[in-house]
């Protein structure tokens, strides 16, 4: 396959004035929904479907692609500035990003996140163009046992997110796993912990819990502690941009983040969250000064933010080459393809090459647009911090509730939002970290379902986890990671204080 020739063809499609305009519409809208907690790219594309049906498919997918990338840019902004991830892929960014913002380095955090997203987006998209069919073949080798082993690796990596006390971190993690059990069990169809409430049958959405714990929880916590409100934030200190040292500390995490994010996105059960956990762990292990993690290490923002953007490019690989949707956004995009009578799959690259390569080229262009759009905005966003805290957090609480109500128009969801928000405020008050709750909520149900599928297929034979090459290798990696973490702990440099 002549990648360069196809790409040139793609640019010819994408560089028409109309398609450039659609790309701009997509990335701008994407940035906006990324910033608003609760409203994600999946919902937005679904709502746009009736409208985009009037324009030709290539333009529609240029909008959708730009929107998906834009959302991953936008979601880090609120993570960094107000400790509230706009999408679940930016949860890890809250840990160090928000600490940086509180110390007056918000602009640097926003910049490293925007440039890292750009670098990773470009690398991911080029990998998508060059390797898509090969990557999918590898990804399909992953069976349930291998996924379970991958989750074990992710759990081992989470040890670096746990915060000042391993015990408190584990408590938070298990709260998340417990919340993840609510709803219908996928394998048996039986409902668990729903207490007869029909609306709980589908479980508590990660978005809802994240918005509740971070946005509502933070607002309630600050309301309960008038003494904290007087704490002076330093909105901007020194140069408003990245220093030479910031660049030096960021570029390697960007590249590593991209390398970690892309394959995870391409896995049929990967997603954009897992690679951010792994990236954070990797950066912390490689850092010269790991104690700084959790207190505002720029690597802890640069790596995960690159990882989530590369993962988005990865998600498009199985979607375009096999018609496999691996995230809710990809599922909606698949529905959109079918609406146009186009079936993504092994034949798409030949049967609709103008669409595929036009989309890929427009993703590269959209990435550049996002950088141009976001870097000048950094200065503007940082000024958010000048808003008096009661006003700022009052506004956040209102937006969070509107957003969550808007997803399903369900009052049960709003009640759950407030209840979990109270839990979040309580956890903060008692100094329990917040991020592990979401990590548990994501990893718990995924690892459970993969474990049970593996054992069900093997008819109860547990040896599959050791005998399958991928699974066996991954379990050894997880064991080494845990052993390393324990050794580090005993040497006294273990985990560092981290909050929220």
């Amino acid at each position, binding site marked *: 396959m002549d990648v360069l020739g196809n790409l040139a063809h793609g640019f010819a499609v994408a560089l028409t004035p109309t398609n450039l305009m659609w790309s701009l519409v997509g990335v701008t809208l994407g940035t906006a929904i990324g910033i608003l907690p609760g409203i994600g790219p999946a919902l937005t594309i679904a709502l746009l479907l009736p409208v985009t049906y009037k324009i030709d498919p290539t333009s529609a997918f240029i909008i959708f692609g730009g929107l998906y990338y834009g959302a991953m840019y936008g979601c880090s902004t609120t993570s960094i500035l107000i400790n509230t991830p706009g999408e679940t892929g930016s949860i890890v960014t809250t840990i160090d990003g928000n600490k940086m913002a509180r110390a007056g380095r918000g602009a640097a955090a926003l910049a490293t996140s925007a440039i890292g997203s750009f670098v990773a987006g470009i690398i991911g998209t080029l990998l998508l163009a060059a390797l898509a069919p090969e990557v999918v073949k590898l990804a399909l080798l992953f*069976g349930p046992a291998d996924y379970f082993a991958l989750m074990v690796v992710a759990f081992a990596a989470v040890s670096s997110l746990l915060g000042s006390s391993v015990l408190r971190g584990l408590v938070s993690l298990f709260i998340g796993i417990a919340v993840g059990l609510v709803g219908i069990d996928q394998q048996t*169809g039986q409902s668990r912990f729903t207490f007869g409430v029909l609306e709980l049958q589908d479980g508590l959405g990660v978005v809802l819990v994240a918005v509740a714990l971070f946005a509502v929880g933070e607002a309630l916590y600050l309301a309960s502690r008038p003494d904290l409100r007087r704490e002076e934030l330093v909105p901007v200190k020194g140069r408003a941009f990245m220093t030479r040292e910031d660049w030096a500390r960021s570029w390697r995490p960007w590249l590593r983040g991209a390398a970690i994010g892309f394959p995870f996105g391409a896995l049929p059960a990967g997603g954009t969250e897992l690679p951010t956990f792994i990236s954070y762990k990797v950066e912390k292990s490689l850092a010269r000064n790991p104690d700084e993690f959790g207190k505002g290490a720029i690597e802890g923002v640069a790596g995960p933010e690159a990882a989530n953007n590369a993962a988005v490019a990865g998600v498009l690989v199985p979607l375009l080459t096999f*018609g496999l949707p691996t995230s809710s956004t990809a599922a909606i995009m698949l*529905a959109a393809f*079918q609406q146009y*009578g186009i079936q993504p799959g*092994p034949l798409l690259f030949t049967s609709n090459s103008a669409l595929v390569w036009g989309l890929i080229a427009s993703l590269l262009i959209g990435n550049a647009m996002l950088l141009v759009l976001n870097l000048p905005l950094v200065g503007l966003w940082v000024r958010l911090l000048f808003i008096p805290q009661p006003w700022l957090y009052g506004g956040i609480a209102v937006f969070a509730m509107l957003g969550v109500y808007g997803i*399903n128009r369900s009052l049960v969801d709003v009640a759950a939002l407030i209840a979990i928000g109270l839990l979040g405020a309580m956890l903060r008050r008692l100094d329990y970290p917040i991020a592990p709750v979401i990590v548990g909520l994501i990893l718990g149900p995924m690892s459970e379902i993969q474990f049970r599928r593996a054992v069900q*297929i093997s*008819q109860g034979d547990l040896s599959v986890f050791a005998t399958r090459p991928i699974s066996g290798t991954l379990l050894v990696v997880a064991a080494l990671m845990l052993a390393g973490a324990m050794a580090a702990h005993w040497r006294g440099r273990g985990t560092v204080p981290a909050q929220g």
Partner: protein
Amino acid sequence: MVRKPTHAGLFAFVLAAGAAALPASAQEMDQLSIMAPAAPGGGWDGTARVMQDVLQSAGIVKTVTVENVAGAGGTVGLAQFAKKKGDGKSLMVSGLVMVGAALSNKAPVQLTAVTPIARLTSEWEALAVPVGSDIKTLADLTAKLKTNPGAVSWGGGSAGGTDHITAALFAKAVGVDPAKINYIAHSGGGEAMASILGGHVTLGINSASELEPQVKAGKLRWLAVTSDKRIAGIDAPTLKELGVDLVIGNWRAVMAAPDLAPADRAKLTSVIDAMVKSEQWRKQLAQRNWLDNYLAGSEFETYLGEENKRVTEILKSVGLVK
């Protein structure tokens, strides 16, 4: 005395011309709201939005609104819809999945509470294996299933959904205890397809239209389809041809509110009838690869009762309904 008949004749002519020019577009309703009991993007939502488009563009209803109420296999929407007693301007999209979900969720409101209007479409199911599989025909599968049902893992959608119901009914039809089948549930078609293509499950059970591109690409092989007749464009035998007495499709239907006045029910039925007969509806079906399976009135009501019975029995035998 000569003029009058001329006037009347002219009047009749104008009427006839009007009727001929707009055969199906005699506007029957001002306003109609359709509930899609699922999130935007899925099959029920798609059905509701196509209905909206066709009813408006064919001039059957002036304004149609679509409302999404997602959750629990459509039973959250069903519970809300059942409260609209006597409302003659509301419809809800429904289908086989809701029959199963209402039963296995022990939902407070069952599908029998609402007024059936018509079945619209069916998506037929199919059984397929990876091309490298040692199962070449349906007979191979049946033989393997009879020797050791646990060794055959079925990859399909959610527990209690169409794929699961089909797998269980198949086992029953070939004389294997449905409780013994090893069904691996997946959320969404993409995840299930990855399991099938990767060879992690023995066979895939899914809608024929979702499996078709992978068969065309030479990755999967058909064993059978579950339709009553062969499906155009799909080179697979039906179960019936192969001696298995089973026809099942993932049908989608529209329901109206409970306790409807007979006049309102007749009105809604004629609105749907006009929609199904319109040019626009046929075009949409062809474009989306949906198969027309229109059935209205008392025949649909009888069908619904039979499906309810068949699904209850099979879900009991696999342990999803106590």
